[in-house]
């Protein structure tokens, strides 16, 4: 199993308010998984804990055989850099960098950006952005920016891709393109993709749906 979650709980604030109330599931390698539920049900919190951006109050998350909460800070950053890709609702591209430079930012951390330039161009071409290598984010459309953000998530050939409402800020045409890209990536690279969505149609396209109600899995 690539992701194993058991007894996962998360509380916020004082007095503590429990947002995740004991979650258990397993996701095998290469699965395309959607996480759905109403606003405030804890789906984004679950995604952030799975992706090591946040930590649980109790329980465990084991990814690739490694319990994330037990990793040291440098090891955790290294793990995240090498094995995880993130796509957010907002593209969060660095406005001073071109599309190609933005895509290569994760690779720069390990000085692998030169080696990965060809790969970055390939991904951008695949996403229909072959003419936008040197374009600054401000000159791109919303859909193009989100595609660049997905390309950035893929540059390190991650084993896990986490997407928090990747279509949430896009019109339906661009939303379809983005979801199709994520689907294709999962199939072509064998990466495990977890995405949070409010849209039941998009959720239905996943291999598996995780539905959440008030901090628990629905079934």
């Amino acid at each position, binding site marked *: 199993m690539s992701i194993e979650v058991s007894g996962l709980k998360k509380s916020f604030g004082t007095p503590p308010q429990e947002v995740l109330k004991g979650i258990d599931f397993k996701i095998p390698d290469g699965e395309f998984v959607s996480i759905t539920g109403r606003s405030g049900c804890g789906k984004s919190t679950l995604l952030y804990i799975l*992706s090591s*951006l946040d930590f649980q109050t109790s329980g465990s998350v084991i990814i690739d055989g490694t319990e994330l909460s037990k990793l040291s800070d440098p090891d955790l*950053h290294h793990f995240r*850099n090498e094995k995880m890709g993130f796509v*957010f609702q907002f593209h969060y591209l*660095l406005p001073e960098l071109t599309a190609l430079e933005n895509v290569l930012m994760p690779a720069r951390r390990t000085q692998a950006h030169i080696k990965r330039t060809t790969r970055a161009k390939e991904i951008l071409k695949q996403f229909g952005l072959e003419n936008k290598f040197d374009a600054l984010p401000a000159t791109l459309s919303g859909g193009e920016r989100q595609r660049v953000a997905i390309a950035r998530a893929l540059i390190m050939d991650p084993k896990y891709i986490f997407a928090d409402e990747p279509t949430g800020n896009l019109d339906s045409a661009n939303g379809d393109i983005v979801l199709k890209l994520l689907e294709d990536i999962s199939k072509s690279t064998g990466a495990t993709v977890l995405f949070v969505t409010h849209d039941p149609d998009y959720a239905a396209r996943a291999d598996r749906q995780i539905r959440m109600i008030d901090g628990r899995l629905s079934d």
Partner: protein
Amino acid sequence: MWFLALRQLTARKKQTLLVTGGILLGTAAYIAFSGIMLGFQSYMMERLVSGGGHIRITAREKAITREEVQPSLYEEGALVSWFKVPSGRRDSARIDHPAGWFDRLEKDTRVAGYSPLLVVQGLAKRGPVSVAVNIVGIEPHRQANVTNINSYIKNGTIEDIGHSGNRIIAGSGLVNKLGASLGETITLSTAGGKPLAFRVVNSFQIGVPQTDDVMVYGSLSDVQKLNGTASQISEILIRLVDVDLSESLAREFGSLSPDRVESWEEANQGILSVFKMQDMIRNLMSICILLVAGFGIYNVLNMIVTQKRKEIGILRSMGYTGAEVSHLFLIQGLLFGLAGGSLGLVFGNLVCHYMGTLHIGVPGSAEYRNMMVSYDWQIYFKAFMLSVSASILAGWIPAHAAGKMNPIDIIRTEGS
């Protein structure tokens, strides 16, 4: 992170230029201030050191005491009760054993030269005009060797007065007061001797009225004759091979004789303390200027950190550590310091060169010259280090704050 830091700086050209300009001005101001002040100080030092010798030996003035007077007036053992106790200065201050000093100074390899003087107060008279003067008897070649008097004499040297022949070189102010012209004869008199006629062969202008208006140089033997004190001297000026030894040698010489031995530092303590004060003010002003520039950097970087929260969050999600994110902003502070500091060095140097072309002093006087400006490498090194360290320090606070930001907090707040 250098790549991203450079990109962020070049993307914000206006802010970058503004902050770099602040550092540039701070650095240049430090260099210009320091150059001018240290230039002035070295000019004054040169005058103080070269004008009065490195060490001055003067006769210690002695007061009359009752123990000295009583034996010459009363028998030994007499019980004397004074209505008015004898007091007052002895007739004249003189160095009691000049030959001993000369012998010692000749043999001392640390001494580059010495000049014996007899300084007496007197009166200069030309026709109905009388002026109180200080008459300085010198051996011209020795005085020229020990002091820089010749640089204050136009069209001649101190040796024009010769070793005898009643020739004098007077201060320019005094010559004007007397209405005399060069080659004319004036009368000098002192309390101890008869008035004698002296020919004014030249004049000097130091630029200090207290000297130029009252001082007259004559040959030592002529002044001794005028004062009726043959072979007597009141001062010895000494020039050392190494000026830095002046204080220790003054202490050493002072322990050998009752005469007063003063180094130039001791004699000019007042001026040196003014220099110290100047240095303090200079450093304080420079620190203030750089603090203002530093606050500029701090404000800009702080603002950038707030503006760049989203980017910080995404960098962290890509696996960049807090320390790497800190570096991003620290590098920007450092680049501000390096660029502003380097340009400030060039601009400060240009300002110094310009200041060096300005003339100071009274036009036509021997002292009319360009402003002395110091180009000491230490000023430039200190200015550069100050600007770079102020920039790093100013950048460190927002950089540290950026490194401490929790990616999930940023993503949650920016996404909501």
